[in-house]
């Protein structure tokens, strides 16, 4: 894309695409420069489009009573082709932000589709859920101010490298049964109930700290936040929950106890696709210094 490096990017010429696993909060979902391509969740023979046909409340209720765990599938390349085609009539540049390519074929589908176009950059966040929404929000802010491709790509690099990403699951069962346990596999055989603080490392789930008990896990999350930010820093924070809204407040309280200048820019729910692996009770924290 070297030819457009000097091109000034703003809301008139640039759009952002995310997939549904970005778990957009309502405000962001309504942004005219942002569009979303859904993954699918399947309960037996019945399929739903994540965040389109099935909302979190319905999903977690159904998860509780389902005989078998749901499965998920990526959008087809054709689905991305349609979306890119529609957007390219209006925008010259598209940044397409997706969940870790090690956890889903979505990045693959998007990359395949992108090859039919010019002006589209596909980004692998190496994470899931509101990390995608947070990155999209930050890029939209840059578009508001006017930016360049180089500035965007260097911000994306910084985001992939330095942003905070941790989560706590009520149970590791869903992650394991869904085959996404990654390097946390060693925790699974444990007869003691573990509440590890998990993170994403090179695109897969990894254990940040092994702990037992919800409160200890929350304390570990606060420690992680302090470790990853500088004293007094202004930090943009996204917190998502799976059928456990009170946990967002608990996490936010812990962050506000620190001396960091915490800005909760996104607060949302974990949708059906990520919820299939996270299970109810999960809470995830993503952040980046501003």
């Amino acid at each position, binding site marked *: 894309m070297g030819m457009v490096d000097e091109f000034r990017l703003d809301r008139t010429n640039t759009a952002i695409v995310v997939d549904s696993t970005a778990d957009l909060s309502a405000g962001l979902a309504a942004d005219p420069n942002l569009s979303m391509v859904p993954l699918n969740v399947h309960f037996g023979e019945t399929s739903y489009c994540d965040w389109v046909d099935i909302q979190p409340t319905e999903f977690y209720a159904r998860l509780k009573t389902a005989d078998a765990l749901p499965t998920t599938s990526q959008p087809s390349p054709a689905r991305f082709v349609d979306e890119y085609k529609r957007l390219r009539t209006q925008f010259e540049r598209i940044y397409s932000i997706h969940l870790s390519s090690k956890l889903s074929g979505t990045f693959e589908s998007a990359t395949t589709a992108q090859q039919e176009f010019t002006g589209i950059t596909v980004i692998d966040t190496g994470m899931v859920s509101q990390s995608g929404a947070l990155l999209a929000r930050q890029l939209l802010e840059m578009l508001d101010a006017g930016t360049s491709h180089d500035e965007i790509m260097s911000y994306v690099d910084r985001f992939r490298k330095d942003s905070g990403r941790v989560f706590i699951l009520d149970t590791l069962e869903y992650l394991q049964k869904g085959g996404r346990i990654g390097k946390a596999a*060693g925790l699974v*055989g444990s*007869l003691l109930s573990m509440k590890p603080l998990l993170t994403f490392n090179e695109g897969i789930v990894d254990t940040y700290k092994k702990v*037992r*008990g919800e409160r200890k896990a929350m304390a570990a999350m606060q420690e992680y936040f302090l470790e990853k930010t500088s004293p007094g820093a202004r930090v943009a924070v996204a917190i998502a929950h799976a059928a456990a809204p009170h946990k967002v407040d608990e996490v936010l309280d812990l962050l506000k106890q620190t001396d960091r200048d915490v800005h909760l820019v996104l607060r949302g729910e974990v949708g059906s696709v990520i919820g299939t692996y996270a299970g109810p009770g999960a809470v995830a924290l993503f952040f980046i210094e501003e």
Partner: protein
Amino acid sequence: MEADSRLRAVTTANARALVGACHRAIEARKQQVNDLNVYPVPDGDTGTNLLLSVRAVVADLANADDTLPRQAVCDVVTNAALMGARGNSGVILSQIVRGAMEALAEMEMVSAAGVVKILRRATDTAYRAVRKPVEGTILTVLREMTEAAEAAPETIGLPELLALIVHTGWKSVERTPTLLKVLADAGVVDAGGYGLMVMIEGMVGGETGEEGAAADALFSIPGIAESTADEHGDSIYTYCTTFLLKGVALDGPELERQLDPLGDSLLVVGTDRQLKIHVHTDEPGVVLGLATARGVLLQVAIDNMKIQTAERDARLAAPSLRPATVGKTQVVAVVAGAGMRELFQSLGAGPFVEGGQSMNPSAEEIMNAVAAAQAPAVLILPNNKNIVMAAEQVASLAEKSVAVLPTHSMQVGLSAMVGFDPENSLDENLAEMTGILEEVLSGEVTRAVRDCVVDDVDVREGAFIGLVEGKLVASGDDFYEVARDVTARLLAGDRELVTALIGEGDGADSARAAVDRLREEFDYAEFEAHEGGQPLYPLLLAAE
């Protein structure tokens, strides 16, 4: 004089005779030494540990060549004592033996002056081995004997010197309660010191005439059945049979009368709810049959006394349940109870050594498990304060990289295992797990094995007692109330996660019911309960 000639030259035959006499003496008084425990918790096992430690030496000497040179005889004894050491008392004994053998190996013949040197070296080695020597223990008894021997006139003959040593030693044992308050509170003398004197006197040959008298005079705890064990000579019977019998209104004397014709070395000790039975017999089946008719049998052990002890130990220590993956570090854990083993295994521990309270494994059993581990580094979790020293002894003797995480209880060991990662180095694991240890408090609920006042708590035999970090904090007839007192103390401070481990046997139902009520009472804390299946302790608790 017999002791004189027996001690003169260091040969395999003389060593066998001397250690054999030591073994017979401690075997005869094993139960007495066990009963000299300070706390009313069922952990009286000093006598058992000393006996099994000595038995390891007997076994190795039995297999040793008759024509070994002096140094080799001493090496056999030293090594057998080090590897056979069980419990803290066994480990200290092995260090005493090590020092004594170092001195002995330098002597052509043993003289009175030689005995003084042996005692001095033994004393110094033993004191060095214990990080914080406590006076009023086996160490004091040994030191005072040494000092008395050193102060004796140079012209003293060997028999007179030995008599002086034995006399001084028993006097020292008698004074142990004046040096150690816990002994005075419990009204007992130190079990380790008492055991040491039983062994030394056995070796000297009892010619001073004080033997039985001194031992019996010091053994003054009321209500304890006297040993009827044959004081001298090996049993003519084949099977050493021991077990616990639990029931209601058990008639100990009646059972004793029924068992008496079936063998010798018979001991029936305990309460009307729990009896410990020991008998040497050729008909263990008949013995167990008689007992089964009266109650529930636990911890049944039938040993063929004619089979070499070493073989038995090797079999007991056979590695089992290896962890699925071998990384940089493996954990060897000492555990009791099938559930407990599974819990540890689920956190990546193994190989295991079976043992714990009142059944301390030998250093050799721990060593075998360390050898069975395939990782280059091994972390040992002794999971009992009486096994820590044996584990440390193994660490100092082992050829691979071995460290000890000094866990004092299984439940604390379990909490620490959460920090274990086989892919981390020994030092990393040690640092992480030590960090967890600092945050965990342990609690226990069990039954008192006798009346006493400990840590300012009045305890009646048979009552439930609650301990926090090994210290008695509650006693009473209601299981739940004791468990509640313990839990309240555990949760003081910022602790909020309680791991409850349910034991085997009678108390398990009370423990389960208590945990359900504790959950309601302390609803601000998280409770996690598991079936540990551990003996003696219906409920083990860890809070962090």
